[in-house]
Each structure stands twice: as C-alpha cells, then as structure tokens.
C-alpha cells in the first residue's frame, strides 16, 4: 500500500497504472558511467521505481565533477562514485536494489554484466567504450540507450532495440575521435537534459508506451532550443557472437601475445616479418637482424608511421617488459599482428648464437 502511495502520481496516468508500475518494479537497468549523464539518469529511474539498477564506474568523485554531477556532495570528494550513487538512491527510494560496480567496463566483464539486465544505458564519455557497449549489447541482445554531449549540444538514440539499427550503423568508423567533457567543456544542464531524455527512453521501453528513438538520433542544442531527429537504417548485417567479441576485445584488453625466443628462430630470415628493438641504441647485446629496426620505446609513438600496421612484428627489449608496453601501444594503433618476445634480447641473443653455431 505504501508503494502505491509513493508511486500514486504516475500510477494514475492511464499509460502506466498498477500494471505499468509492476513492469517498472521488475525491470533491471544497467547504467555505464556515473558521471554527468549517469547522475541525471539514475535518480529518475530510481524515483520511478525501477526494481534493480546497476551502476558501473571505477572513478572517484573530484571537485571538478560537482558542477554537473549533481547527485554528489562536496563532502564525498575522493569517494567512489558508485558507492555514493548507491547511498543517494537508498535515501531516495529504498525499494530499489542498487548494484554498485566499481569496475572499469571492459571486454572481460561486459558480457557477464549485461546478461543480468534488461536495458543498458550508455552514460560514458569516450567513443571507444561506446563501441564496446554496442558490441556487448549485440552479443547479449540488449537495447543500448545512447546519450552524449558536445558542449551545448547533445545526442540521444536507442540502438539494437528489437533488432534495430546499432551505434555502428550510425557511426561506422571505430577509430573516430571526439572531445569529451574534460577537454571540450560542459555545463551541467546539457548533461542533465540529455540524461533525462535517456531515462525517458528507458521508461518508455519498460512500459511499452510511446515511440522509442530506435533508428532515429535526436540532436538537441540547448543554446537555441532546436532539436532535430535524423533517421538511420540498419546496415551492419554481420552478427557478432560471443566468440568474435572475445577475440576482438582480448586484443584491446592488454592481452599481448608473448612468444618464446625459441619459437621465432625460424623467422629470423623471413622477410615478411619485422623485428622491432625498442631498447635504446647503447644497450647490449646488439642483435643484427636483416629484417630488424630499432626504435626506442620513448620514440615509438612519434615514429609509428615508419612501421607497417599489416606486417607481423616481433617486439623485443632487454628482458621483455618494455616490449610488452610497446606491443600494447601498437595494438591500440590497430597493428594487426604484434607479439612480444619473452625474455627479450638476452634470450634472443642466446638463440641467435646457437643458430649461427648450427
């Protein structure tokens, strides 16, 4: 009865009713990101009585967050966002179960997390994670409620809703760049408005009312109050299964393949591959590969254009630590096949000596 009173003003809406309230109470929503957008989405879903809400974010509250992440208090600076968000909800509406997940979303945890929820809200602030969320939603067959901000403008859409178009159908280029709030600047109101529009899409999907922004992107400009909707179609037919997902993200998750020096001994004369020495020029032992090149780790990023991203590259340093860092860098830059030689130059020189002795 207490619940009915709490939710009375929405239950009396003909579109909701007791039945709709029940739908809300059994819904499970996962919010990725407890920043500006998350801080707007969360209280509205919680207040409306969404039964279970997960929040994923490994950040702690900084004083510069408070002008837009309005659920946090000044006294909570330095504390985990998800813990504070959970505490906020428990005071707002103790009927809601909140799962505070103080982790970074990655290829490793995305699928198992998404499987536990009905709807995934993208409240993140960088592009590469949006592709990760999109892909994980495809694998787990969940709708993705997208929101993002550029200064005084915002975008909202719902992807993968009932097999509808995805983020990749709208923005196919996974390597594109855009500034986040830290770099571009942002005012709390724009994340607030866009976050509330996201919460609205969530509620509509749960209640099955209205028109979901599927196959449409809403663009909102708070400076002139213009909003426009653009239609887009599904154009990626390739289904992403769990195996393909794991292969794709293992690479991005620092799963650098290490290879033993013994194994690559036969590659020494192979012109198709490249041996990349990331040590400084004065480090010993020197190993002279005819298909070798030396670029110290510190200079690698600036000299990356000297390397062919489609070539198999074996990276080595003195012992195998810097080469791993270098291999990670190259993988992030979309090099196709990069392996780090375990044991580095020390192991390698031994093997090369033995080979020459043969």
């Amino acid at each position, binding site marked *: 009865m207490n619940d009915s009173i709490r939710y009375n003003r929405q239950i009396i809406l003909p579109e909701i009713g007791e039945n709709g309230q029940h739908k809300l109470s059994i819904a499970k929503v996962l919010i990725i*990101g407890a*920043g*500006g*957008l*998350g801080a707007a989405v969360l209280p509205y879903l919680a207040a409306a009585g969404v039964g279970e809400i997960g929040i994923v974010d490994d950040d702690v509250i900084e004083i510069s967050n408070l002008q837009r992440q309005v659920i946090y208090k000044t006294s909570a600076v330095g504390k985990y966002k998800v813990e504070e968000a959970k505490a906020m909800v428990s005071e707002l509406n103790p009927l809601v179960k909140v799962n505070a997940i103080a982790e970074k979303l990655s290829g490793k945890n995305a699928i198992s997390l998404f499987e536990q929820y009905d709807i995934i809200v*993208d*409240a*993140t*602030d*960088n*592009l590469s994670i*949006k592709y990760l969320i999109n892909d994980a939603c495809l694998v787990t067959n969940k709708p993705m409620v997208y*929101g*993002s*901000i*550029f*200064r005084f*403008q*915002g*975008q909202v859409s719902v992807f993968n809703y009932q097999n509808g178009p995805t983020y990749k159908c*709208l*923005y196919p*280029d996974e*390597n*594109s*760049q*855009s*500034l*986040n*709030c830290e770099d*571009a600047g*942002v005012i709390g109101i724009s*994340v607030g408005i866009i976050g509330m529009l996201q919460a609205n899409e969530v509620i509509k999907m749960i209640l099955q009312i209205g028109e979901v922004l599927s196959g449409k*992107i809403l*663009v909102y*400009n708070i400076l002139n109050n213009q909003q*426009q*909707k*653009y*239609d*887009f*179609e599904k*154009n990626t037919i390739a289904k992403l299964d769990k195996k393909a997902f794991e292969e794709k993200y293992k690479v991005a998750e620092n799963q650098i393949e290490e290879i033993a020096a013994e194994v690559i001994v036969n590659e020494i004369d192979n012109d198709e591959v490249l041996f990349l020495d990331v040590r400084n020029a004065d480090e010993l032992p020197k190993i002279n590969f005819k298909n070798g090149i030396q670029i110290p780790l510190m200079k690698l990023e600036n000299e990356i254009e000297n390397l062919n991203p489609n070539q198999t590259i074996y990276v080595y340093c003195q012992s195998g630590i810097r080469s791993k860092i270098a291999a990670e860098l190259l993988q992030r830059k979309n090099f196709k096949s990069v392996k780090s030689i375990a044991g580095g130059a020390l192991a390698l020189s031994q093997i090369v000596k033995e080979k020459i002795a043969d």
Partner: protein
Amino acid sequence: MIEVKYFGAVAEKTKCEFEKIPFSEVSLQQFLQDLEIKYQFDSLSFSVAVNQKIVPKTTDYKLQTSDVVALLPPFAGG
C-alpha cells in the same frame, strides 16, 4: 540553394551552424569534397544526412534544390 547544417566539432571548424550554398547540380560526393576543401575537416569523422535521413557518404545521389544536408559528428562527452 542547398541548406547545410553543421553540428558539434564540425560546426567549430565551419564557424557556423548552417549556411546556404548556391545550387549547382552536384552529386553528394562532390558536394562533400567541396566542403572538405573549404573547411579542412581532416580527421574529423561525421555522418551525413540528406533531408533528415542518414545516407552513406558514397551514395550515388544528385542533390536537388531545397535539399537540406546535415553533417553529424559523434559526440563523446558525458
């Protein structure tokens, strides 16, 4: 005239949110190339809409008088 709308980081490059460009029977591809030359979008990535509908940039389409083209980059803030 073709009306062009610019959003996000694209509008920062063009220094305007919309403009009208005198119409001269061009393909969408040619039109986008001309904009690229004019504004040097470089590595900025964006999707293109014609009359409120996102279309592939390579689509074989001849722009009609009174078409509205929009360049929509992805946003990342949150």
